[in-house]
């Protein structure tokens, strides 16, 4: 690597994943640099979520390399990877319904600080009282902060889900369909919050999304997957006009 050129935050090299001989991800390579928001789009079954799961250690890739800040993290357990500063949300809502909004946020941050002993004998909020208050305010969850997460509306749970991914102060966040099932008002709210975090904290995002308008407005660069391969990559305008992309989406 030549000096002066910043190392990518995330680098994926020739990643493969097959299930019983059927390839879901077939040699995907890309880099994401600090502060970037990379969108990943592609038809259903094109391997987007499998790619995420391989990067994040939920699945072990059949072949290929994943590095974060130059360190190989291929096959690392999700909890260890998370504590290195890589966070995620899932395609389906994943909050803890029996915990309050505040408790959900405390949980999302508590393993990033202190030791097992300090988590047993130390303060109940693990020293994250202020951080959770700021996150509640930032994602505008104040009115429901002490309600059980299971009782929130779908859109509010989506916001909480995203807020949890940011509690540990991650360098890199992978969001799997953050806009899915969210109404227009809430969508604008979510996009606005994500952009603000990206600007203020210089955190780097990779976003899987079907909602093209949302992707075009949020992302700085877009990668298009089809049948487990990268068929196009570039800024939103270029990708929108790419004939391969149009064909993959509209098909025959």
């Amino acid at each position: 690597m030549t000096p002066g050129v910043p190392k990518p935050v995330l680098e994926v090299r020739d990643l493969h994943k097959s299930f019983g001989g059927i390839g879901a991800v077939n040699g995907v390579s890309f880099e994401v640099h600090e502060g970037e928001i990379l969108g990943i789009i592609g038809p259903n079954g094109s391997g987007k979520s499998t790619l995420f799961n391989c990067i994040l250690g939920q699945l072990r890739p059949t072949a290929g390399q994943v590095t974060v800040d130059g360190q190989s993290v291929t096959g690392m357990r999700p909890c260890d990877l998370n504590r290195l500063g890589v966070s995620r949300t899932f395609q389906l809502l994943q909050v803890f319904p029996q915990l309050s909004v505040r408790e959900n946020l405390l949980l999302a941050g508590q393993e990033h600080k202190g030791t097992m002993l300090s988590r047993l004998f130390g303060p109940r909020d693990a020293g994250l009282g202020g951080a959770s208050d700021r996150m509640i305010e930032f994602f505008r969850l104040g009115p429901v902060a002490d309600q059980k997460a299971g009782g929130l509306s779908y859109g509010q749970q989506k916001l909480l889900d995203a807020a949890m991914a940011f509690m540990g102060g991650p360098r890199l966040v992978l969001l799997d369909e953050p806009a899915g099932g969210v109404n227009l008002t809430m969508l604008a709210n979510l996009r606005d919050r994500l952009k603000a975090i990206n600007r203020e904290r210089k955190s780097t995002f990779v976003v899987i999304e079907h909602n093209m308008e949302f992707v075009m407005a949020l992302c700085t660069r877009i990668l298009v997957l089809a049948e487990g391969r990268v068929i196009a990559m570039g800024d939103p305008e270029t990708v929108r006009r790419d004939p391969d992309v149009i064909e993959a989406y509209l098909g025959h």
Partner: protein
Amino acid sequence: MTGLRRLLAIVLSLGAVAVLIAAPFDLKPYGVYILSLWAVTAIAVIGLNLMIGYAGQVSLAQGAFVGIGAYTTALLTTHGVPWIGALVASGGLSFAIGWLLGYPALRVQHHYLAFVTLAFNTLVGLIFRNEDWLTGGIGGISGIPRPSLLGWSTNPPRSFYLFCFAVLLLVALATWWLIRSPWGRAFVALRENPVRALSLGVDTRRYTLLAFALGSGLGGVAGALYAPLVQFIDPTPFGLGFSLNLLLMVIVGGSGFFLGPFVGTLVAVLLPEWLRFAQGYYLIIYAALVIILLAFCPTGLMGLFGRLTTALRPVPARPAAATLTETVP
């Protein structure tokens, strides 16, 4: 919780503790024995509730851990080791074996895990029964002494009850601290959504093993009190039936409620005594009551209590969350 409710809870708890301290002075020795049995069993049920109610890990082996604790204490105290040393050994051994039993839980869950732990319970029962050189086989171990603490003998039934109750209080306070700490939060996360917990940095493997070890360790502590309570042990009381009974106490009391084990154990220990008038029918009545309770209130007696207090409380005015509009998924 508002200040008034918290005050009420503290006053009620202190009242309950006072009643339970005063209770033996008004009871015949058999009654004191039953109350002691309640205190001892409640400790094992608190451990099981920690595993099932909080961390979501099913175990049908809690009876075996009470047995491991009881045999350890019986063997050590009949060979001259002071009770406090036997307690540490019983709790420690159960903790360690519980940790090992947690490994299958990293691979299987729910009813599969139940069967793994069931097999373990059977295995331990066979060891109690067949390893005569260690456990005395079906002849058991007799002459288990009750401890003396700083010159205070716990030999009389009332003293021993107070001793058991004091240990129960310590266990309850420690558990209260635990479930309100970040560990307790991680346990609940393990129960509700282990995949998401893992992605948030929660080392689910470590917490699963810890839940097993801590819950089983409390089984061992209960055993360390059970041996000097009955002063004679053999393999019979630690069979699968006992483990199922302990599970029933967790469920009847209310799985995942702090007070559940106290209530569930009270019902399971006292109800058979109260139903003695029914003679041979008492098991039928007991079983029918359990079926009715669980059919109408699967969250147990504490859940029922919660529903009643919610129904009686005036409905508070909800603040309008105007900016956060509802969505249609």
